[in-house]
Every structure is written in structure tokens, then in C-alpha cells.
């Protein structure tokens, strides 16, 4: 214990901040992609068109049934072999995480839609709205409210999972810790520092989410 010295990370602290910022960037972009994909896939899974339902279900099963790390490796190292060109680290990480997130968000979307009372759809349809109008004006806005807590969890999970981008050599927070550990020969302090950065970000985000939830609940 006596040889612990956290001042050794101080000269590198900018590296950590930049890494944290990058982690947030990846996560935000990935969540946006995830929500976009997830909304369609989630609704697709509930579709009456059998082929659409099958495609969307398969997508969700594959995403949820395989490790994110492997998906990431396929994206960065595997795909270039087929495509004939490499995808740079940043878009590769964002896309892999986003496509992964889409699978989970799809289930969140589906759960949110199913949680809206059946009478809402009936009331909307009885007023002459089409299925699409009822979805857009009545069901989805209510479903979205119910989706916020699980979407928040998804964001936190994704933020932590962004550390996997280290494996494709991307300069984010975990990679910063690795670099510092390598150049100081002291792994403990930099990794603890990285962990602290992640923790502060996830706690901060959970707090913001809590405030948002209370605000929205006030409207009910």
C-alpha cells in the first residue's frame, strides 16, 4: 500500500479527459444509431408481415446471442477482408456498438409499445386514425416515456462497453489508462483512475436521467 502514488497520472490527465470525451462521443452516436435501428426493428418484430417479423427477430437473436467483443472484431478486422477496404477505428467502433445497441433497443421499444394500454390504440382507431397515425401520435409518445428508464440503462451499458474499442486500437479512456500504465510501469493507479472516470460519468448520467424521469412523470 505504501508505494501507491496517484500523482503519477497527473502529467497524463489530459489523456484521460480526452479519452472520457471520446467514450461519451462514441456512446452518444452509438445510442442514436441504436434508437434508430431499434425503433424499426422493435416495430418490425410486432409486424403482421411474417418475413419482416422473421428478419427483425433474427437480427435481435444474433446481436444478443453473440459477444459484443466478437462483433467488434468482425467489424474492424473481419469486414475489410470482404469489403476490400478498412473502416477507420472511430466509425467502426460507433457502427459496431450502434448495431449492437439496436438489438437491445428493439426489445426496449417492443416492451414500451406493449406497455401502452390496448384501449389507446382502439380509441385512436375509433376516431378514424390509420394504424400509422395512431402509432405516431398516440402509442409511440407514450411508449417512449416508458422506454426512458431502460434506455438510460442501455446508455450506461454502452458507455462501459465503449471500453472494448480499445481492442481495435481506438484511443478512448481505457486505452489512455493502458498507455499511462505502459509508460510509467505502474498499472494500478492509471486503471483505477480510468475506473473513477467511468464511475463519475455513469453516476452523473444516472442522476440526469432521474431528474428527467421525474419531470416526465409530472405530466401524467
Amino acid at each position: 500500500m505504501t508505494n501507491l502514488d496517484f500523482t503519477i497520472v497527473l502529467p497524463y490527465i489530459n489523456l484521460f479527459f480526452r479519452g472520457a470525451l471520446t467514450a461519451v462521443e462514441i456512446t452518444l452516436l452509438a445510442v442514436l444509431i441504436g434508437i434508430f435501428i431499434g425503433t424499426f426493428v422493435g416495430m418490425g418484430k410486432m409486424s403482421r408481415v411474417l418475413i419482416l417479423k422473421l428478419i427483425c427477430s433474427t437480427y435481435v437473436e444474433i446481436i444478443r446471442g453473440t459477444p459484443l467483443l466478437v462483433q467488434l472484431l468482425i467489424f474492424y478486422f473481419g469486414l475489410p477482408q470482404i469489403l476490400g477496404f478498412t473502416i477507420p477505428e472511430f466509425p467502426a467502433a460507433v457502427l459496431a456498438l450502434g448495431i449492437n445497441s439496436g438489438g437491445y433497443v428493439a426489445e426496449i421499444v417492443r416492451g414500451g409499445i406493449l406497455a401502452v394500454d390496448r384501449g389507446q390504440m382502439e380509441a385512436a382507431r375509433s376516431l378514424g386514425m390509420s394504424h400509422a397515425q395512431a402509432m405516431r401520435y398516440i402509442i409511440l409518445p407514450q411508449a417512449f416515456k416508458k422506454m426512458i428508464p431502460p434506455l438510460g440503462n442501455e446508455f450506461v451499458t454502452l458507455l462501459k462497453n465503449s471500453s472494448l474499442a480499445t481492442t481495435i486500437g481506438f484511443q478512448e479512456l481505457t486505452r489512455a489508462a493502458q498507455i499511462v500504465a505502459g509508460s510509467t510501469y505502474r498499472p494500478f493507479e492509471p486503471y483505477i483512475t480510468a475506473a473513477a472516470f467511468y464511475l463519475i460519468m455513469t453516476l452523473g448520467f444516472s442522476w440526469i436521467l432521474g431528474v428527467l424521469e421525474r419531470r416526465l412523470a409530472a405530466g401524467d
Partner: protein
Amino acid sequence: MIEVRDLHKSFGKLEVLKGISTRIDKGEVVVIIGPSGSGKSTFLRCLNLLERPNRGEIKIEGKSLMDPCTDINKIRQDVGMVFQHFNLFPHKTVIENITLAPVKVRGVNPKEAQERAMELLNRVGLAGKAGCYPSSLSGGQKQRVAIARALAMNPKVMLFDEPTSALDPEMIKEVLDVMKDLAAEGMTMVVVTHEMGFAREVGDRVMFMDEGMIVEEGRPEEIFERPQNQRTREFLSKIL
């Protein structure tokens, strides 16, 4: 105005409607009574295709609901419905609940829809609640807003599915009063209810349903004073 011929509906193996035939004329108030599980709500919900009948025919103003070419959304615009559990849109204010469909479905301009909505809210005695969210209203107030919402589409017929069954006793009257006014103005109404007082006073015709069939129908005084069928007599003796 509405013609129903040999309507059948099953849920899985359970046959809920076993051949319903009737007609409802313009301006008529038809009250459907009967024990729970008799198929009266299902019948009502078939009239705007919230339930799809297995066979039979429904025509509203000559247009067949069973014809796949019929645009059901178009038909529903003219058929208002009020539900037992109100089904107001909780994320919209009272006035938004009422203006949404006229604006989005009928393409009425928002300002006109607002004016019309205020008119309707005045009529159901809730003009002061225009900006409120449904969660802040009592059950009776919610149901009156729901009626205003349906009326905003200027329907040719109104369907009521047990509109007072989910209400506390002291709120039933305020909803029934709105419905009475509506009937007095000549609205064509089909009402599923357990309110026998309403059926007797407002109904032009009472229809007694049991086990998926219309057992007996006629003028309220005939059904209530001189029921012809044994099952009608039994039902009425239990509830009156």
C-alpha cells in the same frame, strides 16, 4: 342507417355472436341490455370493426364493412365511440384530445378545431378544463371529455360501450345527462349499459341479448312491463 345481417363472431372456440340481425334507423336510440358475457359489447365493437366478425354483413349508410375495398378509417370517422375506461390520451391535454383527430384525420384547420372543441367542452360543462391533463380529472369528467372527443368528428352515429360502468355512483348522472341531451338533439345512438333507468327513459328501443343472440327487442315499456321471453323476465327480475 345501420343494417346488420346474420353476424357471427368467435374468439377461438368460443362463439360469442351467433347470428345477429337488426337495423338501426337514423335518430334512433337503441339500448342493448343483457347479462355479462352475452356478447353485447362484442356486437357493439363489431359495428366499427374493432372486432372483425367471422361472417355476416354490416352496412353503414349502405356501405358494407365486410367488403375488403371499404376504407374502414373513412367509416370510423362517422362512427363515434365511447369506451368503458374512457381511453383518453394521457399525454395530451383535454383540448388536444378533442382536436387531434379532426386536425390530423379530417384535415380541419387547427384554429377551427379549437373553437369547435371549446364549444363541445362548454356543452359537456368542462370549458374550464381545456388545458388540463386527463389525470387531473374525475372519472365522470373524463367520460364527458371522451364524449366531446368523439363528437368533434361530427359522427353520424355514436356507440357507447358501458359508458358509466367504471364510474363512482355519484358521477353516473353527469354522464347520463350529457347522453340524454345528445339523444334529445336527434343523435343516432347505440348504447350498451346496465342503467335501466336510462334505457327506459331515453331508449327508443331496448334490445335484450343473451348467449350471443338478440332474445327480445321492442319499445322500453314493452320490454320492461311485458317481457315476452322467459330469459328476459329472469334477467329483469334479477336487476330491477
